[in-house]
């Protein structure tokens, strides 16, 4: 795959996943209650991209990106960081419906924000390798 196409895919990932995985929590009021936090986390991970074409979860967006770029990022350390960041964010999926599990907003935000940060790092890496 040529570098321009790869960059295009990364910029789309930045938008579809990077932007929308953090947005619901960014726009929560500072004193949000547990149920608001849980709903925002659900929006971030399960209703990540909602367009007229339908809904895509964060997991589906990431899987589609990995399938399309298979083999392109072998030995790229920054990609490993992105994989770890996405895995860390997706780990929160299991807590969305577990009403007995108290959500820690700071921890969730820290984990989710690593995703756009890692995507931008990979974009820069890909640009400089062009």
């Amino acid at each position, binding site marked *: 795959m040529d570098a321009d196409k790869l960059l295009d895919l990364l910029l789309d990932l930045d938008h579809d996943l990077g932007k929308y995985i953090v947005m619901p929590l960014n726009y929560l*009021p500072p004193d949000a209650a547990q149920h608001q936090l849980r709903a925002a986390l659900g929006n971030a991970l399960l209703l990540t991209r909602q367009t007229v074409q339908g809904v895509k979860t964060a997991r589906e967006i990431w899987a589609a990106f990995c399938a399309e770029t298979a083999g392109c990022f072998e030995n790229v350390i920054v990609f490993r960081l992105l994989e770890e960041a996405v895995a860390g964010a997706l780990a929160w999926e299991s807590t969305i419906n577990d009403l007995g599990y108290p959500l820690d907003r700071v921890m969730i935000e820290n984990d989710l924000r690593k995703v756009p940060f890692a995507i931008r790092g990979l974009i820069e890496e890909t640009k400089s390798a062009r």
Partner: protein
Amino acid sequence: MPAKPRVLVIDDQLAYAQIVRSQMPEFTLIKPLGPTQPPRLPDGPSALEYLKKHAAKVDVILLDMHFDAPPERLLPLGEGFSERRTRRFQGVAILREIRRLYPRLPVLLMTSIEDLALVDAADELIDQSMTYLLDGGDVDALRIRMSGALKEADLDMEESGILWGEDPAMRAVRRRLMVLTRGRMPVILEGETGTGKSYLAEKFLHPNSGRPGPFITLDLSSVPSDLVAAHLFGAVRGAYTGAVADREGVFQLAHKGTLFIDEIQNAPQVVQRQLLLALQDGRFRPLGSKREMHVDVKVIAASNASLPQAVRDGRFRSDLYMRLSPSTRVVIPPLCDRSADIPFLLRRFAALSFNDREVAALRDEVAAALGMPKNPPFELAVGRNGKKTGDALQIVLPEPAWKLLMRHHWPGNMREAAMVMRNIVSFTLVEAVDAARSGLPLHTPRLQADSGLVGELLAGSKSMSVPGDGQQNTGDMIPVRIQAAHSLSAVSSSVERQYFLTLYRQTSGDFAQMADMLMGDADKARAVRLRFNQLGLKIRELGKNV
């Protein structure tokens, strides 16, 4: 502003609509597709279709940048944009259409300035009034930006005697000045002579600064260079020949207020050094004094020439320019760049001069001759269509005279426009007064202005009115070769390529200098560079031939 402003969301995603609905109860979220449908419009065509019928019911638009719409639902962005890029920057295409059709509708585009630079749209869109950017942020940032946009939409053409008009560039100036009024940070006002720099400083910046002290002005072009320091910082008796008593400088006089230094580009080099020190911490020594003084002054520095250019030419100290802070530099557009405002401004200047003290005597004499009460209302009418309405005293400009005014380049800017209109009003009244005094009866309150008079009034400045002949821009002539091509856009691209190449050679490849020549702003070098790329000019190859 309506009690509950109505927000239209244009976004393929539901996220922004959900935020407005759940967290911004002070706004009404429009449901453009009906009560049971998601409260947003998912693409450009549906948004334009909706606005065609309902624009008057929308107070502010929240517009996303990226739209995953099918190709037939995407507005084009121009040549060279793949379908994927058109999707990614679709917000720009939608915004361009909204700006074209609804220039006064506030739009908040959810993107960053870096993204706009990728489509070479940053300058174009940022300079536009009613367009705001917000990237990321939180609900408070969104709320503040939306309220600001709504307040600006409410702004009248005229505010406390300042004629902002509706030209987007001038509205952007107001927005920027409003921010710069606060605090002690100095402000640089740049603009051709007559654009109203000192008026804006006195009538807008100072009153909005909240500073309790006075507004003090010093025009450096009117002070002999060896006395500039004394005027600025004061002097003790005997400090120089003729200093027979201690005198206060403008820095002292403006304590806790605002100091407007006009024509700062004329400051002698030695004074520039002293100014730098005074700006740094408000400390200075009056001429001949050992005692250091400390004042709290907000400085507004004005120049009718480009300060970045003066720095490059070595006429202005770069450290002083940096201390004045390039980030607070505001360029007031010349009147010829505010063509949409010219009819409004001319009418307003005519009305203002009608109430001038000297003109008022003539006005009342004409009113008396017509059997009208003193101080009648005024109207400026154009041509035969300008029918009399109510009890106003009208001055009727023949159509050709009005056209002449519209075509004029106004090298003297607002000052010239005000003077020309004042002269038209007073000369027309003088003619009527003369007629009345010689016993001729006046029957109609429609006084015809002399067409020839307008031509004569404009003739004086016409020799100066070649575009680009202002003091800010020397308007160098660049020869270009026109060659027939398959389309007009190909011809203009070829012409543009030629002048960019010429500029590149003239400036030895200095993009900052080119940006300054083209846009009066050296900081826009990146935009020039992007244009180079778009025109297919390869900088690496050009470098060999400079």
